[in-house]
């Protein structure tokens, strides 16, 4: 386990570095001039040249990267070219919003997906299973903005149970904020459940049909005893990686939902800064997200090793 941890902890900064280099190069290579984008098409060439100079855009590539890296590591993430605000507050603020939505959706996702997957697996090939599987499949294939739109029409417009915008008024309490987040969270949960539930179903079926469950039945255990003692653990642990994948998606992959529900999250920020070639914001957001993703993957691997005894130690024999 320590070997895994050290290996990963070394890999993370290396990968982040690679990511930042990649983003840097990408924005350079591509058409479009940041200065012109900021100042607009009608701006004079002179003012554009001035802006370029002041932003240091005429320096050599490696120099610019080194400058950026030096400042970034010390906490100075620069100022957004387009929004003119400090990048760090901007990115972290947006990130906070995204994390709130992600956490809400994730907390709903885990019990629902595990529960449905178990149910489908325990009754596999019977009507309950067919319904859960088909519905999960259909919802998992449908883009979240599509389900979001339908939810909006039904629950926000017609029934008026929930607000149409995900952003609460500033200073609102947690419950009010969550109330605004219900519809986007539900559309996300509908999307993600299918994928996770399918995995849980598969491992449940494998457990139910396994030799050790058969052996337990042959020893006279009742169905509920068998499920409780043997199936539960062996069917839910493999879902860890599926849940990890969804967690990654929920952080930063929610551009569509953020746009649909007018929610100031980090996904929309990422998109906007890419379109505007707002390099400091883009870099910062990409690096922060990359870090989060790798931490999630690490967490998944560690959790797996903790939960599955087979992975814990070297086999003796």
């Amino acid at each position, binding site marked *: 386990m320590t070997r895994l941890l050290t290996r990963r902890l070394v890999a993370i900064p290396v990968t982040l570095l690679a990511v930042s280099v990649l983003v840097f190069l990408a924005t350079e290579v591509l058409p479009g001039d940041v200065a012109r984008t900021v100042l607009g098409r009608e701006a004079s060439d002179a003012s554009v040249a001035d802006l370029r100079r002041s932003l240091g855009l005429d320096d050599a590539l490696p120099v610019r990267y080194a400058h950026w890296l030096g400042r970034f590591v010390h906490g100075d993430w620069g100022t957004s070219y387009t929004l003119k605000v400090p990048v760090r507050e901007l990115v972290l603020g947006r990130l906070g919003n995204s994390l709130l939505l992600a956490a809400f959706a994730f907390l709903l996702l885990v019990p629902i997906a595990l529960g449905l997957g178990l149910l489908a697996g325990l009754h596999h090939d019977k009507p309950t299973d067919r319904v859960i599987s088909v519905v999960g499949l259909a919802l998992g294939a449908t883009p979240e903005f599509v389900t979001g739109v339908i939810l909006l029409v039904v629950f926000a417009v017609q029934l008026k149970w929930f607000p149409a915008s995900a952003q609460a008024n500033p200073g609102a309490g947690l419950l009010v904020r969550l109330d605004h987040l219900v519809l986007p969270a539900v559309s996300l949960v509908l999307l993600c459940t299918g994928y996770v539930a399918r995995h849980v179903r598969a491992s449940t079926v494998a457990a139910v049909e396994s030799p050790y469950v058969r052996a337990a039945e042959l020893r006279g255990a009742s169905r509920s005893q068998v499920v409780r003692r043997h199936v539960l653990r062996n069917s839910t642990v493999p879902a860890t990686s599926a849940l990890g994948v969804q967690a990654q*998606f929920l952080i930063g*992959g929610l551009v569509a939902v953020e746009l649909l529900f007018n929610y100031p999250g980090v996904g929309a920020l990422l998109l906007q800064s890419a379109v505007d070639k707002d390099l400091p914001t883009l870099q910062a957001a990409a690096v922060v997200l990359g870090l989060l993703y790798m931490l999630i993957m690490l967490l998944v691997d560690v959790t797996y090793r903790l939960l599955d005894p087979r992975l814990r130690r070297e086999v003796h024999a």
Partner: protein
Amino acid sequence: MTAVQERRAVAVATGVAAPPTARRRRPIALSVGAVLVGGWVLIAAFWPYLAPYDPQRQHPTLRFAAPSGAHWLGTDQFGRDTFSRMLAGARPVLEIAPLATGLALIAGTLIGLLAGTCGRWVDELIMRVLDAVLVFPAIIASILFVAMLGRSVTVLVLVIGLAFVPIVTRSVRAATLVERQQPYVEAALLRGEPLWSLMLREILPNISRTVLVEATSRLGDAIFAAATLSFIGLGQQPGSPDWGASVSDNRAYLQNAPWTVLSPALAIASLVIGVALVADSLRARLDAR
């Protein structure tokens, strides 16, 4: 009896394999899916003959008209017929997604085969690159690159296709590794078969199931990605009847003209669900074999 029958009988007798009838699904899912997909493909091909109006034609006096006999799904803010726009919107998605899927499949299969068959440093290298690339979920990477590279059909196909190469590579590599360890591959090695023959003649036919499942799953993903990209404004030209763009353009009018938003949304849903049903039926069929 043949070995397959023998083994099946034994497997059935020992209860290891689920008996054939118990797991036979009626092909409803497959039929429904096929109808949905087939239907949209036909519409994408023939919509000029099917649409009652020109999707770009504006009827200024009939803005936000509710569904009626003249306009089955009403009109939008420019008075354009929603039904015609819905039909026309099928083509952009169905042009991009299959091409992107094909790209992902060919590239991913070749790389995955190479990694699994060669092993050792080739595999290590490919895996490290994959790990680095896979840090970001495919959707995010596609969004970033399309945003930066600009939108055109070529860019969309390339970006979406390449975004899914790592996933395909992983699956194909995993399946290849399983076959690679089998004695028949070692026997081929022992008689000196060259690398390309090992990959394409020995191993590829035996991982065709995996490849087929990947093809159908990635097609669904590609449609998903194309729709999402056009929704967030990175699709093709503005004003096109592309479904995702239509949803985005019209979402301000959820309150007073919900049909303008719901029709493209439901069109997307029906297509992706159709593809997913077909993909799942294929997967179930291939697993049972």
